[in-house]
């Protein structure tokens, strides 16, 4: 399964990545799995730990940890929005 992952705002700066393309192991079924998988990279990636205030989107719609991840999905991690 190949997906695209985007990072925005303070999270983008913390991680030093704006986006990446990942091929995922079969053990990753949900957004929550993916988040834990990325957080395990350690260092700056601990910003994705479960306790942190991070929002997620799949294919440009807000999504929760239980949402299934599918091949070619566009997934995004970002802090709470502060628009307007």
């Amino acid at each position, binding site marked *: 399964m190949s997906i695209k992952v*985007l990072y*925005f*705002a*303070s999270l983008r700066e913390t991680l030093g990545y704006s986006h990446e393309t990942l091929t995922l192991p079969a053990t990753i079924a949900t957004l929550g799995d993916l988040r834990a998988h990325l957080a395990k990279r350690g260092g700056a990636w601990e910003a994705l730990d479960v306790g942190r205030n991070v929002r997620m*989107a799949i294919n*440009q*719609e*807000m999504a929760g940890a239980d949402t299934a991840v599918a091949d070619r999905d566009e997934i*995004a991690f*970002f*802090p*709470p*929005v*502060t*628009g*307007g």
Partner: protein
Amino acid sequence: MNSVSVQEADFDVGAEIAALSAGRNDVGAVASFVGLVRADKLAGEGSEVSAMTLEHYPGMTEKSLEAIVLDAGSRWQLLGTRVIHRFGRLTPGERIVFVGVASSHRGDAFAACEFIMDYLKTRAPFWKKEDTPEGGRWVDAREADDSAAARWEAPAG
């Protein structure tokens, strides 16, 4: 009659409001809102904001604004809605966002306009970074905005 723009350029408020009733005679009310960059910070904090940079999520931003506009149209009787949100670098006094809503009646226009602004603050993927004398600082989401949006979760009146 609904239109959403996400752009770096400024906009013409008078022209946008006029467009919401142009060429028709069933619009009795146009409620609108302009959000601007404030130099002063929230009470209790100290320094001045010299500029801000708005980052957004291209694609999702437009999608979320269109969803908010559609949601408003299902709650109130509306004749047209216009949303413009800028991104990029903005200095104090500059316009950030415009929401204009046309309706036959003022109650619907006001409610929808405020509803769209409340949701826009909490749902649309925009992030503010303030340039202060101490450097750039990402703005935290404000609880006031979350509670303003939450009041719309009850069944529509």
